[in-house]
C-alpha cells in the first residue's frame, strides 16, 4: 500500500519544477479524503483542462478570497467545464473565482449537499454569445446552497439550478447574463435577498420538457431587487433562454406553486413579471409526461416601478406591447393559459390553483389570453385585452420555507 508514496513524492517535485498548479490541484481532488480542506493560494492560475472531483464526501475547497484566488480558463484546451463535481456528498466551495471557462464555470451533478459561498463565475469582456453557458450549475443535486456568490456574463444563466431538490439561492448578485438566476425542473427552492440587475431576464422559474426530472414546484422568490434587466438577449440561437424577451424581471413558465413576494422590481422594460405556459415559446414537444401550463402562482406585496419606456422590439410579445401600450407597458403579464385539469364543470378554477395577484402597489396587469387572441398573426393587434386584475383577486396559502440538510 505504501509502494506509491515515493512515486507520489517524486511526482510532486517534478510538478514543482514545472510549476504545475493544475496537476497538483487535480491530484488533490483525486486523492482527497473525507474531512479534507483543499486550500488554494492567492493568485491568478491559468488552467488548461477541466478540473474534476468525483465520488467524494465531506470536502471543502477554499480559496484565498473571491478576488484573491482566480482560476483562469482563458487558455482552456480540453473539457467543457471549468470545475466539475460529480457523485459527491457534502461539498463546500468557498472564496474563489472561475474565469472564462469554455463551457460552464462550475458544474455539479449528482451531489447531495453542495454549498457555493463567495464564489464568482465570470466571463471577462461583458455579454458575448461566445461566453460559456452557465456560471454556477448544480444539476440533479439535493440540498443546494448558493450564497454571497456572483455571476457575470453567462450566455445562458448565471446562477442556475436544474432538476434538483431543496435549494436556497440568497444574498448573491447576477448581472450581464442572459438569465440572472434560473430554477428549472426543481422542487422546493427559496430565492431571496439577491441583487439581479442588467441581465436580459432577472429570475426565471421554468419547467421544460424532455428532461429526466419532469417537473418542478414550490419555488419562493422574495426580498430580491430585480432591476434594469434590459440588455439584449445574447444567447446563442436554439436555446430556450433565447426566447426570453429583453426587459423581463421575473418569468414563470410551465410550472406550479410559485410564490413571488416582497420583491422590488424596477425598470424592466418589457415585463416586470411574466406568467406563461410553454406555448409562448411556440416550440413543440412530444413529451407525454410534460405539463406545459402554470398553476398556483401567487404574486403579492411586491413593489413594481417602471419609468415610461418602450419594450423590446426584438420579440413578438415586445412588439405587441409596443403597439398596444407604447411606453406604458403593464407590470404583470399573463398568457391566460390555466391548466385545464383544474378547470371545474362551472368553468372556474379554485383559488388554490389560479394565478393570484394581491397588494402590488397598483401594478398594471395584462391577460394576453393567447388561446383566443393569437389565432392569426394580426389578431393580437386587433384583440381586446383584459387589463383588469380583478380576475386574479385571490390569495393562497404561503409556501413552506425550504430547510436544507447541510451541516456547514
Amino acid at each position, binding site marked *: 500500500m505504501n509502494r506509491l508514496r515515493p512515486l507520489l513524492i517524486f511526482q510532486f517535485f517534478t510538478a514543482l519544477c514545472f510549476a504545475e498548479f493544475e496537476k497538483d490541484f487535480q491530484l488533490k481532488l483525486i486523492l482527497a479524503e473525507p474531512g479534507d480542506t483543499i486550500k488554494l493560494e492567492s493568485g491568478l492560475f491559468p488552467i488548461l483542462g477541466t478540473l*474534476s472531483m468525483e465520488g467524494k464526501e465531506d470536502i471543502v475547497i477554499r480559496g484565498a478570497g473571491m478576488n484573491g484566488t482566480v482560476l483562469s480558463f482563458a487558455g482552456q484546451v480540453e473539457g*467543457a467545464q471549468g470545475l466539475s463535481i460529480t457523485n459527491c456528498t457534502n461539498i463546500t466551495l468557498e472564496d474563489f473565482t472561475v474565469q472564462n471557462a469554455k463551457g460552464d464555470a462550475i458544474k455539479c451533478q449528482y451531489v447531495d449537499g453542495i454549498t457555493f459561498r463567495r464564489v464568482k463565475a465570470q466571463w471577462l469582456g461583458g455579454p458575448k454569445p461566445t461566453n460559456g*453557458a452557465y456560471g454556477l450549475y448544480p444539476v440533479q443535486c439535493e440540498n443546494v446552497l448558493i450564497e454571497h456568490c456572483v455571476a457575470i456574463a453567462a450566455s445562458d444563466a448565471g446562477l442556475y439550478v436544474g432538476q434538483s431538490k431543496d435549494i436556497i439561492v440568497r444574498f448573491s448578485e447576477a448581472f450581464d447574463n442572459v438569465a440572472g438566476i434560473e430554477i428549472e425542473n426543481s422542487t422546493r427552492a427559496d430565492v431571496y435577498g439577491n441583487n439581479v440587475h442588467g441581465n436580459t431576464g432577472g429570475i426565471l422559474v421554468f419547467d421544460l420538457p424532455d428532461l429526466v426530472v419532469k417537473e418542478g414546484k414550490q419555488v419562493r422568490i422574495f426580498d430580491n431587487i430585480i432591476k434594469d434587466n434590459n440588455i439584449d438577449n445574447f444567447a446563442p440561437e436554439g436555446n430556450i433562454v433565447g426566447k426570453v424577451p429583453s426587459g423581463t424581471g421575473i418569468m414563470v413558465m410551465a410550472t406550479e406553486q410559485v410564490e413571488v413576494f416582497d420583491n422590488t422590481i424596477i425598470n424592466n422594460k418589457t415585463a416586470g413579471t411574466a406568467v406563461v405556459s410553454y406555448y409562448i415559446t411556440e416550440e413543440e414537444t412530444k413529451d407525454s409526461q410534460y405539463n406545459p401550463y402554470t398553476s398556483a402562482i401567487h404574486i403579492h406585496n411586491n413593489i413594481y416601478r417602471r419609468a415610461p419606456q418602450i419594450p423590446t422590439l426584438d420579440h413578438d410579445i415586445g412588439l405587441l406591447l409596443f403597439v398596444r401600450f407604447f411606453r406604458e407597458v403593464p407590470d404583470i403579464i399573463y398568457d391566460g393559459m390555466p391548466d385545464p385539469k383544474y378547470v371545474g364543470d362551472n368553468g372556474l378554477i379554485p383559488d388554490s390553483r389560479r394565478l393570484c395577484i394581491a397588494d402590488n402597489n397598483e401594478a398594471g396587469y395584462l391577460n394576453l389570453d393567447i388561446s383566443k387572441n393569437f389565432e392569426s398573426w394580426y389578431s393580437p393587434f386587433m384583440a381586446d385585452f383584459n387589463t383588469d386584475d380583478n380576475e386574479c383577486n385571490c390569495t393562497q396559502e404561503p409556501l413552506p420555507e425550504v430547510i436544507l440538510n447541510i451541516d456547514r
Partner: protein
Amino acid sequence: MFLGKKMLVAVCTSSLLFSSHPILDHALPRLSDYGFFQEPMKNQIPIDGILPYTIASPLFSDYAEKLRFIHVPDQVAISHTADHTFNFPAGTFLIKTFYYPSDFRKPDGARRLIETRLLKKTETEWLAMPYVWNAEQTEAVLALAGDRTDVSWIHGNGKAMNVLYSIPNMNQCKSCHVYNNIQQPIGPKVRNLNMDFVYDDGTMNQLEKWVSSGILDPLPDINTLPRTVNYSDNFDGTLDNRARAWLDINCAHCHRRGGPAETSGLYLDLEENDPTALGVNKPPVAAGRGAGDRMYTIVPGHPEESIMDFRIRSTDPGIMMPELSRKLVHTEGVELIQAWIRNMPKGE
C-alpha cells in the same frame, strides 16, 4: 520559480501524502510491476493467460491506434446475462495501450506508445489507472492526474499531422466509464466482441475463443447473438447500422439513460428507438453556444441545420462532442453522420 514557491507551500499544507484512497491499495507505480507483457515491454506481447482482443467499432481518440488485452484470474470466468452484458470476476484486468505509428501507411513500422490504461475489477468496483510511457519506451508510469504530450505522425493520406494528446486523469476515466454512478467498462460487450480475431494460432471468433480459453462461461450459438457492425466498413450493415454504431461507441457512454449526459434527454445508444430521444427534431436543453444557432439536434435531410453535425465537427472545448478523448475532428465519422442525417426521411 515564482509559482514554484507557491507550489511548495501547497504541497506542505497538503494531506495528500497521507491519503488512503483505495486506488493506493491497488495501483502499482509502474506498468512493468504487473508483469503483463514479455520483455521488451514495448513489443506488447502478452504473457500466457492474457488474451488480445478488439472491438467492432472503436471510440475515436485522435486517430490513436489501440491494443487491447484481457486478463481473467485462473479458476474463474466471466458470466453473462440474458441482455448480453458481462459480469467480470474480481481480479479481471482490461488493458488498453494507445499508440501512433510514425507513418500510418506503414502500420507495422515504427510506432510510439503513449499510454496504457488499466481497468481493474476489485471485489467491489472497477478502478481506472492511467500509465504514461517514457520517451525510451521502456516503461510506463502511473499518472493519476493525467498528462498532455505532443504527438506527430504521417497520416494515411501522406499528410503530416500533430496533436496535443491528452492522457485522461482518473476522474476523466470515470466521467466516460460511469453508468448509474458506477464505473464500468464500455467496449467489452457481447455485441462488440462478436467478430473474428487473428490469434497467433489462427483466426477465431473472439467469443468462442474466450469460451474455449475458459475465461467466459459457455454462450448460445454466436450466430444468434447480437453483433455491432464496423462503422469503417462500407459493406458492413446498412448506413443506419454504421451511423448508430459510431454514435453508440463515441457518444452513448454519456448519452444514454443512466449515463452522465442523461440530463440532455439525448440518448444515442444502439438500443434506443425513440426518434426524439435520438435527437430528431429535438430542441437542446442546456447546449449553450454548443447549439451553434441551430434549432434541433437532428433535422432529417439537413445535416447543415443539425446541432449534432455542428458539435461533432467542432474542436472548441466549449462546443465539441464528445467532450473528452479528442482534439481533432474525426472526418470519416462526421461524413458518416452527415450521410445518415441527409438520408433520413424528411417530415417525420
